[in-house]
């Protein structure tokens, strides 16, 4: 049986501290757990060994991968190399925190093939950084990017958050302009979502901090899109902007339903049309026998995913693919016509796309099409 798996995701669930808005699987574990974790992780990579396909992208995410000793990252990439075929032009990314990155780490990453660095900048305003519980400051963020360039990384992403306390478009634009000057090739800008149970949500509920209103966030976002466009960063996906040719392959893979293995705590895989998920409980993972939780996708679910993922991208969703899975256009004709006539979507022979100025309400559009 030939597998067409093409991407690998590796999860590093370790952080030196938890950001106030984070509800994701990460924590500050003691060293002995970290050691055991990496043993298990390497075991998992080996367990799934498969040399029948080529890996087009590897993404090491977290947590904070840069917070762990670089030897672990080297071991991981070495294990992947030994057990899978990595394409020569594969994109290999790692997420870094500006305050835990060093020249030594960057060189180590480079030596084992990493060619894309993603920094969690979020904002360059020190007060704002503090309010969302980030450990780094403006100076560290800028230095980290400079350092990465110096070490020879030419593909650098900076993550930004829109909607954090005290943010104004003025400060956002000034941040972006400074970051662009440093030569980042890719910018991810996510709307801050106040998930239940996070520290920030609690602070907001207790009226200790105030976040910009929905309308203000949308205003800032739209202004930002215009600004980035002017600076040649094109929006290839709802929250992702890049210079031509620097689109993140790994991310694009998700939207195009490319198959991938996910290794590590709470990682997910998509193999042979089924989705697998790892436990998000550390103890369970350390005793994991690789008996994966499997979820087979029905045609209806595949359609849901195709629309949900496809409409996030500038390319849109392929109509023929949808049809192949049994999507009923006749039932939806009225809705599609209505959305198109009101300039929410555009449509050609092959694709349906969300109009650029309507990306903000993509979810509502998706819901109408389902």
């Amino acid at each position, binding site marked *: 049986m030939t597998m067409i798996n093409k991407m690998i995701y590796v*999860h590093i669930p370790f952080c030196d501290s938890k950001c106030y808005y984070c509800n994701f699987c990460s924590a500050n574990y003691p060293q002995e757990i970290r050691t055991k974790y990496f043993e298990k992780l390497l075991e998992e990579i080996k367990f799934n060994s498969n040399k029948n396909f080529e890996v087009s992208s590897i993404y090491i*995410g977290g947590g904070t991968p840069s917070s762990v000793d670089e030897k672990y990252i080297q071991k991981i990439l070495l294990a992947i190399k030994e057990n899978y075929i990595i394409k020569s032009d594969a994109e290999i990314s790692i997420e870094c925190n500006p305050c835990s990155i060093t020249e030594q780490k960057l060189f180590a990453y480079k030596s084992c093939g990493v060619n894309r660095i993603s920094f969690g900048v979020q904002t360059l305003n020190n007060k704002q950084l503090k309010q969302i519980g980030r450990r780094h400051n403006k100076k560290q963020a800028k230095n980290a990017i400079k350092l990465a360039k110096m070490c020879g990384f030419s593909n650098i992403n900076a993550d930004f958050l829109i909607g954090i306390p005290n943010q104004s478009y003025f400060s956002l634009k000034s941040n972006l302009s400074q970051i662009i000057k440093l030569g980042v090739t890719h910018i991810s800008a996510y709307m801050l979502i106040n998930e239940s149970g996070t520290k920030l949500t609690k602070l907001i509920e207790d009226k200790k901090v105030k976040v910009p209103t929905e309308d203000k966030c949308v205003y800032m976002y739209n202004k930002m899109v215009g600004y980035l466009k002017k600076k040649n960063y094109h929006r290839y996906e709802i929250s992702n902007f890049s210079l031509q040719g620097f689109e993140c392959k790994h991310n694009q893979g998700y939207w195009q339903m490319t198959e*991938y293995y996910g290794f590590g705590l*709470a990682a*997910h895989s998509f193999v042979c049309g089924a989705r697998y998920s790892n436990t998000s409980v550390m103890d369970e993972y350390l005793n994991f026998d690789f008996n994966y939780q499997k979820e087979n996708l029905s045609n209806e679910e595949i359609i849901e995913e195709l629309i949900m*993922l496809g409409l996030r991208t500038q390319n849109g969703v392929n109509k023929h693919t949808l049809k192949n899975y049994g999507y009923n256009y006749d039932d939806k004709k009225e809705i599609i016509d209505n959305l198109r006539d009101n300039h929410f979507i555009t449509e050609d022979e092959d694709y349906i796309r969300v109009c650029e100025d309507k990306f*903000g309400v993509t*979810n509502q559009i*998706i*819901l109408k099409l389902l």
Partner: protein
Amino acid sequence: MNLRQSKIRNFCIIAHIDHGKSTLADRLIENTGTVSKRDMSEQLLDSMDLERERGITIKLTPTRMFYNYNGEEYILNLIDTPGHVDFTYEVSRSLAACEGAILIVDASQGVEAQTIANTYLALDNNLEILPVINKIDLPSADIEKCKKEIEDIIGLPADECPCISAKDNINIDDVLKQIVECIPAPKGDVQKPLKALIFDSCYDNFKGAISFVRIVDGSVKIGDKIKMMTTGKVYDVTEVGVFTPSMKQVDMLQVGDVGYICASIKNLSDTKVGDTITNAENPCEHALPGYKEVQPVVFSGIFPVDGNRYGDLKDALEKLKLNDASLNFTPETSIALGFGFRCGFLGLLHMEIITERLEREFNLDIITTAPSVSYHVFKTDGEMLEVSNPSMLPKVSEIERIEEPMIKLHVYTPPEYVGAIMELCQEKRGEYIDMQYIEKTRVVMEYKMPLGEMIYDFFDALKSRTRGYASLDYEIYGFMPSDLVKLDLMLNGETCDALSLIVHKDKAYTRGRQIAEKLKKVIPRQLFEVPIQACIGGKIIARETVSAMRKDVLAKCYGGDISRKRKLLEKQKAGKKRMRQFGSVELPSEAFISILKTDDND
């Protein structure tokens, strides 16, 4: 009268809502050892979850108890009654099956509206009334004042009346003693042909329709042929029994007994409440007087949220109707809501209970439209229509006049709230009739008021403006012509029929504005801007706008967890399913009922 008969006491408990009726019933059951303490659950006779939660009694539940008095064993049959004004009709049904009534008065609150209303009902039925003062454990209890009120307002001697705490089980035995001593044994002759009054009925999937009866004359046992006197239909008795309070089969029911009869009756309509059952082979001459047919006064449209569940809703209503003869419904259609039913209720509480039961017991998501009364619409061509659905109102040019149902309202209150109540009644188009001091601290105010005003939050407003001290009671009082108009609501330029209301002309502007504001709050932002307009006869009187939604995107995809994203989306999609598509507008179900709650400042 035979010896057995002389040892039976049939009684009910009447009281204002919250005065402790069900608690006393529990205590009586417990103290007579009818149900062991271990099996007692709080408020035993309120068997529906809903009854227990809300602390109200909806259905009548009879119970047989044994009580030993002076060395002799007595059978006490208790028939529980509902206390709320909506269910006055059910109270009168219980009363007709009894010889006596325990009248509970709350020691801290004294005589209230329903106390008096229910006393009158009991007197009408020639019942022996035993006043009982309850809640003497409360610090605010004033027994002497309470006794004086009973004597002055109700006109019953209160010297000897038991002072009890049903909650703390104090002096319950006094009540039991008085039941035996003061309430007469049932009259009637066991030798005469069977004559039994159906005072309630219920439906059982195995036994069919079950009649709850009081045997007035004669006896009945398994195998007897019985006849329903109004329909003339004849059945074979398959089971007779008593209430312990669960149903327990016995060999025979005789004169004076309260029990049930099963006779493989398929339809509940064949065991009509108020009908007389007799022996088919040896019938009695005259039927008992029975009850007058109950008329619904409040109407509302009920629709399934998911249009495909119309059939389920129909089945559910039919099942509820089996045990609640006062519920009635006819199919109706709405442009906004599709297929559903127009239902008639005894009052707002009744409506709330039915809708809650539909949701809980039948797991249905339903939309109810704002309640309406039934108007008499006289057309220019001389025809008269009864209109309970605002969207069925004929064109203005075809209407000669509209008459609306009126009520006579009695409000009982401490004098300091008279001003506030007058103001409220005036706002509700009430017409002052009379006011009397029934004693120094208690006034009864009498008003004539449109029922249509009463069903909009009047009760809540009265409670809030009198800090809960006032109580009310009303009766239907005929129809009166009134200057009424139809208020329409337009969403995105289209009239939404399910939101239409019939209102008094003077109030139309205010209400139109309030509803538009309210709708703006409950309608979520959508892809398009949604204008909301209130209009009368095509003239727009208020406008609000729900601005278009700006932001709705799923968060970052962490670690390739697409499933989570899809599940979030599916959840959102399920939420959408609860919405009604009206043209291009998505309406949440609350929108339809929210227009009811627009009075006062919210």
